């Protein structure tokens, strides 16, 4: 059957099972939007306030469901506005397909209106990208884009399509080739690795986001239970370990638990699963666990030995590798190792609760109350900064794929778009809580209009400490309290702004007020903002300064910094 490029594009989206796309129309995608209009009964298009919001929404959709998220933007500025969203998704291995229009073939390369060489820009921040200027290539290129985004190590793929292609006619052939079955993989060193783990005295499991992407939570928990191995998780792996499990030592790294960081540092065997030894965990790559035999299991060969050398490595899907490794692992108990860790746990930072009516509102209490009230099914989305670390530290329970955060790129302004995408993806069946700070939220709070337009019940909890908290904390610790451009003295009235957008707003100064506001917000069927006033010297503890090791941990006193 002969179809035009836009019809083919929609056909392929349907072939791939896409039900929702996020985007923003414009000149070079008019043909595509015309076809989306005609197909609106099959594909829902969510128009955001800004293309960056669309990219983050597609990312949130993907992280919450595991399916590939799709966003669409026009040429030039539309396309460049996707860049931060693509880079965010790339750093965190999120499956996404971004489609941009470009100027007609005859105008390419002539600095035409709204023309930009976008594939040149997205090359280093996507898993792959394509430029399509021939309609005959369109269907297969789009199919390939979806395949690349969602195989191996996931990632965003960008497809740039010229305007003529979206109008040109060609014969559309439905996909014929059956997807190639994955060949079973053999690993030749599993027995050796099992022996190393079985004979270890102080083993430790370092859990990364790859566990989530592989769906290997159960296998990891079985490994930890069977061999009685303590474990910690990175920001990207929040939710993969059982809460309340003795072996779950909590968050790892710069703002991780002292006991967990101490345990990994003192381990004799460290099993790194689906992680890339980022500088937020291996703060000092040269000294990171240098006395430990490192076993690194990862789907990306390029991650093996990239930041920290390892003794043993397996290049493969974690679920598959662990399924084969588990029968070789000896069941045992490690009381002596636990006794050491229990000693370190005594030094862990313990935040102090304040009474519910105190005007000194504490982040950890806000987060714990939220978890209690929102229930086990909630999805948590964060922006970037102190509130993000508090959320990772104090969320008391979270399901896999339900803690959405920009870990690698650290994108302030990620949260609102992602939360909208996650809520739409789950059809409002699960409470979605968006924790943000006053700094991050100001970057993209304009997406409130999207949440209102589509009646998206996202609850935004703004931890307002009046400063750029993380910058402020570093300036306090390491820059002699010279708070350069981190105390903007903004006068934003969040309740009024929320209402101005057509959303609901609350202002809270005590925990009691917060609980009352949250209770109402959880019943609302549209977006709600809850502003919580926080002290500007509320810091994230503990903290290992960049480039240092666990021995340099600042537990709860800024005076310890720089020692």
């Amino acid at each position, binding site marked *: 059957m002969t179809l035009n490029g836009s019809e083919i594009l929609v056909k392929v989206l349907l072939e791939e099972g896409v039900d929702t796309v996020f985007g923003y129309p414009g000149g070079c995608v008019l043909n595509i939007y015309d076809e989306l209009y005609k197909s609106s009964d099959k594909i829902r298009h969510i128009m955001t306030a800004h293309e960056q919001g669309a990219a983050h929404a597609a990312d949130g959709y993907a992280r919450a469901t595991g399916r590939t998220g799709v966003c669409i933007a026009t040429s030039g500025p539309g396309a460049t506005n996707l860049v931060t969203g693509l880079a965010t998704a790339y750093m965190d291995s999120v499956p996404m397909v971004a489609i941009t229009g470009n100027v007609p073939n005859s105008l390419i390369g002539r600095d035409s209106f709204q023309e930009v060489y976008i*594939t040149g820009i997205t*090359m280093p921040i996507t898993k792959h990208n394509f*430029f399509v200027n021939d309609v005959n290539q369109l269907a297969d290129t789009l199919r390939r884009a979806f395949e690349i985004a969602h195989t191996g190590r996931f990632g965003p793929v960008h497809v740039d399509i010229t305007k003529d292609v979206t109008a040109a006619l060609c014969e559309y052939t439905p996909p014929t080739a059956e997807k190639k079955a994955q060949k079973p993989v053999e690993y030749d060193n599993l027995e050796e690795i099992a022996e190393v783990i079985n004979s270890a005295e102080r083993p430790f499991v370092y859990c990364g986001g790859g566990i989530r992407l592989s769906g290997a939570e159960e296998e990891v928990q079985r490994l930890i239970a069977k061999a009685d191995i303590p474990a910690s998780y990175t920001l990207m792996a929040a939710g993969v370990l059982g809460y309340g499990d003795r072996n779950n030592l909590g968050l790892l790294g710069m703002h991780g638990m002292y006991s967990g960081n101490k345990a990994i540092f003192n381990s004799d065997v460290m099993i790194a699963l689906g992680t890339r030894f980022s500088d937020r965990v291996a703060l000092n790559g040269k000294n990171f666990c240098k006395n430990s035999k490192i076993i690194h299991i990862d789907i*990306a060969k390029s991650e093996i030995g990239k930041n920290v050398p390892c003794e043993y490595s397996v290049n493969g899907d974690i679920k598959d590798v662990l399924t084969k490794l588990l029968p070789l692992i000896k069941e045992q108990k490690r009381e002596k190792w636990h006794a050491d860790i229990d000693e370190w746990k005594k030094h862990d930072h313990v935040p102090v609760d304040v009474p519910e009516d105190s005007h000194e509102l504490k982040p950890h209490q806000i987060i714990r109350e939220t978890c209690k009230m929102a229930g086990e099914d909630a999805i948590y989305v964060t922006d970037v900064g102190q509130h993000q670390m508090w959320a990772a530290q104090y969320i008391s329970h979270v399901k896999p794929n339900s803690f959405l955060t920009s870990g690698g790129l650290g994108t302030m302004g990620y949260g609102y778009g992602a939360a909208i995408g996650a809520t739409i993806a789950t059809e409002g069946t699960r409470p979605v809580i968006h924790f943000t700070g006053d700094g991050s939220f100001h970057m993209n709070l304009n997406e409130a209009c999207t949440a209102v337009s589509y009646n998206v019940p996202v609850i935004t909890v703004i931890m307002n400490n009046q400063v750029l908290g993380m910058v402020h904390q570093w300036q306090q610790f390491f820059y002699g309290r010279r708070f350069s451009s981190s105390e903007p003295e903004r006068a934003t009235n969040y309740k009024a702004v929320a209402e101005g957008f057509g959303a609901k707003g609350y202002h809270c100064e005590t925990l009691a007020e917060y609980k009352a506001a949250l209770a109402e917000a959880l019943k609302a069927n549209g977006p709600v903002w809850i502003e919580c006033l926080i002290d500007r010297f509320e810091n994230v503890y503990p903290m290992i300064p960049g480039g240092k090791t666990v021995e340099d941990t600042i537990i709860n006193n800024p005076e310890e910094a720089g020692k």
Partner: protein
Amino acid sequence: MNEKHYLILLVENNAGVLTRISSLFCQRGFNIDTLTVASTDNPNISRITVSCFGDETVYEQIMSQTEKLIETKQVISIEPEHAVLRELLLVKVETDSDNVDEVVRTAAHHHFRIVDSHKGYMVLETSGSPEKIERMLALLKPFKIVEMCRTGATALEKGKVNYDLDN
């Protein structure tokens, strides 16, 4: 140890593939010493020979990062002693009535080909391993080199073929 390494990349012969490879090297801070690229007997495949400096860890990273690219079909690490490495050198020297005979004699003696002689300039050509090219260049030191170019190494492994593009 900062050693010179050679690798061969078999990549899809698409527009932009070279940009992708060189962008990756730049992004990851790998230093390319030389790079040659051309299509092969299979029109869908381009063959790139890269020489670069780095220690073993850096080299392994270069290999695995390049393998990660979607358009990369295969990355082959080659040992110079198990390969035929060749590059082409073109040198333009200034000549005058005093030295023209000497230039011609040197060229003949060391098997340079004189590929052009034009109003006081002579272009000499030779090919060989990168080490030979260095030696040949040194022989021309007595003359005034006004322009030169070399292609960088291109290479084939000795003996059997160690790749399978159908895989």
